[in-house]
């Protein structure tokens, strides 16, 4: 069993040493209250912002290179600049649907520091002229909803939200909306559909980027909870200060959830770009290594949709560029570590099943292909596999995501990495994401598939070792 070393009132969060931008209040038991927030500088950034012009705030965020934390890692300041001039009203939609396997940090931010998020929303609305804000929280996160509702009520009472905020002409409502259980709704256009009261099916792109055509057909900024939680700090401390953390291309910190077979799993706020996977997984300050008696077999570096990494990729920095070039992505900041007891086929099946269950059903290749993949994998696992199944799986995968699929280098087989992102025959990346576990494992552990198919060796060697 891993050691319990997290902050008791914030289960899962590990207070490592290092700079704190978004988790600075997590140490307080009452961090979610207005009182605590105000006592620790809460809403100060809003006042600072209101003393400046909207354009000044926008350029500060642009300067800071605040990268989106929802998955794609797109710089917020640049996305904000895509709003077509004059096509009012503009909306802000906050993506709090966090459902990517292995990922959670938005939930903690919402539960532990809702005022920080609200303040970020308000500053963003002020900076861009966004006239109404919808905060969409994953349905299953009852506590987060509760804390945000409470925080909103307090903030309204205090005059931070609503009409004539802090006595200025700046007015905006923040409306809390609950999701209802659908991973795909995290995709920003599906989120907008859901907010409009529809089935959460992604919209076609191009040309409909939400910044151009979003909620109710109006220009809409969609940002992730963590992204917006950074905005008060950036506003208050400035871009220059922000850039003293992290690397040049990935300044600031990021929250990573490291789960699985590490000694100290947890959610950490980490400096991006300079910290490596090895630091995070093995560092004393962080996860402290693989559980005793076992070795790293593989890890998912950025949420269930990311192609898998292995020993050889441990020294990559936590930065989008190098990770992408190495064949995967940092994605949502969810790292799942698997040691030598893990059955590669079974693990792959579990993620594929997730995509099959969560496909919205719009695109034929995703709707039919993910389920087909799942059933073939299940058949293999049940000992009913056929020798042709491996090639067939790869071909089904190719029909969802044509061409070479991103994958990590494998020095043992003398195979190079194929850089991220994958191509797709679908509208959104969900269907293609189902391919990641398949190609990652077939390339590396083909023998495990073969063993199951030929029933030579139903249990992988490593697993047997663990059992004995």
């Amino acid at each position, binding site marked *: 069993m891993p050691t319990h070393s997290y902050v008791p009132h914030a*289960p899962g969060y590990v207070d490592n040493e290092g700079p704190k931008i978004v988790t600075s209040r997590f140490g307080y038991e009452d961090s979610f209250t207005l009182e605590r927030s105000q006592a620790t500088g809460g809403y100060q950034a809003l006042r600072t912002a209101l003393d400046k012009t909207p354009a000044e705030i926008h350029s500060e965020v642009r300067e800071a290179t605040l990268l989106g934390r929802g998955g794609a890692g797109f710089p917020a300041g640049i996305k904000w600049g895509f709003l077509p001039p004059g096509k009012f009203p503009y909306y802000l939609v906050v993506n709090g649907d966090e*459902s990517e396997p292995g990922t959670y940090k938005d939930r903690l931010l919402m539960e532990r520091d809702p005022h920080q998020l609200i303040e970020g929303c308000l500053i963003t609305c002020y900076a861009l002229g966004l006239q109404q804000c919808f905060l969409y929280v994953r349905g*299953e996160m009852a506590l987060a909803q509760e804390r945000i509702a409470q925080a909103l009520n307090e903030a309204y009472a205090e005059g931070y939200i609503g009409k004539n905020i802090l006595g*200025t002409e700046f007015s905006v409502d923040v409306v809390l909306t609950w999701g209802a259980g659908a991973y795909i709704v995290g995709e920003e256009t599906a989120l907008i559909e859901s907010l409009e009261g529809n089935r959460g099916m992604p919209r076609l792109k191009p040309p409909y980027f939400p910044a151009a055509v979003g909620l109710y057909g109006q220009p809409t900024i969609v940002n992730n909870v963590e992204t917006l939680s950074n905005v008060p700090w950036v506003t208050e401390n400035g871009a220059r200060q922000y850039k003293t953390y992290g690397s040049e291309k990935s300044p600031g910190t990021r929250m990573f959830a490291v789960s*699985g077979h590490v000694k100290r799993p947890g959610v950490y706020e980490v400096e991006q770009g300079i910290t490596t996977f090895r630091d995070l997984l093995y560092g004393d300050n962080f996860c402290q290594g693989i559980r005793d008696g076992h070795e790293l077999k593989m890890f998912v570096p950025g949420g269930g949709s990311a192609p898998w990494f292995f020993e050889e990729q441990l020294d990559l920095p936590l930065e989008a560029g190098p990770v992408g070039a190495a064949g995967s992505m940092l994605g949502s900041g969810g790292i799942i570590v698997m040691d030598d007891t893990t059955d590669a086929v079974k693990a792959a099946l579990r993620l594929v099943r997730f995509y099959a269950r969560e496909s919205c059903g719009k695109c034929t290749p995703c709707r039919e292909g993910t389920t087909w993949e799942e059933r073939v994998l299940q058949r293999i696992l049940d000992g009913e596999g056929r020798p042709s199944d491996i090639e067939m799986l790869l071909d089904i995968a190719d029909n969802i995501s044509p061409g070479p699929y991103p994958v990590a280098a494998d020095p043992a087989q003398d195979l190079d990495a194929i850089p991220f992102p994958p191509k797709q025959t679908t509208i959104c990346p969900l269907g293609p994401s189902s391919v990641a576990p398949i190609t990652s494992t077939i390339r590396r552990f083909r023998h495990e598939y073969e063993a199951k198919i030929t029933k030579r060796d139903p249990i992988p060697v490593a697993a047997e070792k663990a059992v004995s």
Partner: protein
Amino acid sequence: MSFFDTANLATAHEIISRYPKPKSATIPLLHLAQQQHGWVSDDAMREIAQLTGTTPAEVKGTGSFYEMFKFHPVGKYMVNVCTNLSCQILGGEELLAHAEETLGVKAGGTTADGMFTLEDVECIAACTEAPCLQVNYRYKLRVGNDDFDQMIDDIRNGRADDLPEHGTLALVRQAIPAGTGAGITAPENAREAPVWMARNDVAEGSDDKDGGA
């Protein structure tokens, strides 16, 4: 005739009033219906259609897309065991099997006394605390078999006051006190730039504060 009781009908109208278009209230109202009734009945959907100016087919089309809405009676307590990868590799499936045994139902089933519905769910965002589950969307972390049995026992014996019945999510609702809201901004009635954006022009005009460089 009406499905929603008086208080919930008022809440429903309040919810609708927060969105530029009534249809946007579909999901919140389905939650409200589930809170009142434990699950979403046809009558509830008919009334939601009326309130949002849509058809019952649309309401069901939207509602049935989302897992949390149940269209048939379910247990008072929804026990959702995560078996996604992070939990799987740390005993999630074994926990589910144990839960099936303890409750005497397979995943997806409801106990005969109507107390529990057991589900095998996808990642619930507590991966570092595997294996984990939710009961009516409240977390139980690092759950061992004994912990599970204890929890069921507690619920059965009324020692779980902190758990509202299925359908109730957050215990606190957003409420915008009259007069404090900025009001909805609908596409058709807000074609102008919001007033505060004029500050940019003033700044540019007066002392050219060098906003962009």
